[in-house]
């Protein structure tokens, strides 16, 4: 007998907890239930603001981005259809708003040449782990590889969800994750985490 594949969504089954799933809350929001927004907001607020901090490197900008993200989300109602994990919708919004916020912040104090240089830089990733060694090894990864590692192991997104959030093919996500882990394995600063 072949095992039946379980659907990846909803992540939070109503059978497992009394709290409504994101999908149920989105359905309630589509009927104009503002209280459902409050529940969704407090459920995802900390993740959004810390993700924004990862991209902007500034607490003030992170707070601004967090507010803009939820206002952007709000404007999708009524008519928003949640077909995957809500984080896959929020992630690109946070990333793009963070990049825009960073550009706006540096524009007021940079020369044109500096601005061009800054715009070429990838989004900053604040070292998440407490170990500075591991943080340095992570910083050594390419932005694309680091993004996949953080989404998979810090944000707990599945590979399919990462593919959706970053709009890259699933095979590319697997490949980037494989290369990123291999690079970390080779990095002396992260070696201890690969030892048995």
């Amino acid at each position, binding site marked *: 007998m072949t095992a039946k594949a379980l659907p990846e969504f909803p992540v939070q089954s109503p059978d497992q907890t009394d709290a409504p799933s994101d999908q149920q809350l989105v359905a309630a929001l589509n009927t104009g239930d503002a209280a459902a927004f409050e529940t969704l907001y407090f459920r995802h607020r900390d993740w959004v603001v810390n993700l924004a901090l990862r991209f902007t490197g500034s607490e003030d900008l992170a707070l601004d981005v967090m507010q803009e993200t939820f206002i952007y989300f709000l404007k999708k*109602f009524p008519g928003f259809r949640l077909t995957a994990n809500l984080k896959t919708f929020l992630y690109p919004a946070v990333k793009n708003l963070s990049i825009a916020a960073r550009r706006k912040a540096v524009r007021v104090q940079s020369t044109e040449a500096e601005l061009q240089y800054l715009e070429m830089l990838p989004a900053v990733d604040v070292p*998440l782990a407490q170990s500075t060694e591991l943080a340095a090894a992570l910083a050594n990864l390419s932005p694309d590889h680091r993004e996949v590692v953080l989404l998979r*192991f810090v944000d707990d997104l599945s590979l399919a969800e990462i593919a959706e959030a970053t709009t890259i093919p699933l095979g590319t996500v697997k490949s980037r994750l494989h290369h990123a882990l291999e690079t970390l394995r080779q990095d002396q600063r992260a070696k201890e985490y690969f030892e048995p």
Partner: protein
Amino acid sequence: MNMNPSDPNPRRDGEEPTAPAKLVAALKEPPSRRVFVPSSVDAAVLHAARQHFAQPTRTRSSLFHSWLAWPAVATTALVLVGFGYFLFRQDESTRFAREDVNHDGQVDILDALQLARETQSGDRSAGHDLNGDGHVDGRDADIIAARAVQLEKGPKS
């Protein structure tokens, strides 16, 4: 698997790459910097939400229906305008006496003259067949002329 050697990210369709538990645990450690969200920020976002949901909303479905409704409204308006024009034209042709050829509100010798001109030019209206012989001709103009003269004379005392 993508076999292009120049592709920096060749596709691997195999199993999901796994990380050692030690690494995952270290990555999941709480970040050294966390953002404290002031209650005023929460209040601002939730206030915006309450305002958004308090507004009368139009769903995409109703917008879709309103798009459908516009051609229907336009068609109905056209039909009504056309019908109104038809009634107006009907009224135009019926509100004057058959003998009042020039539609000036009175039957006089001018109507007889106009009908005579129309019969000569060929511009004849079937409504002016006053003697009912199936033709609009000089005899119909004569009938109008006779009536006009009668009217102008006035009733005999």
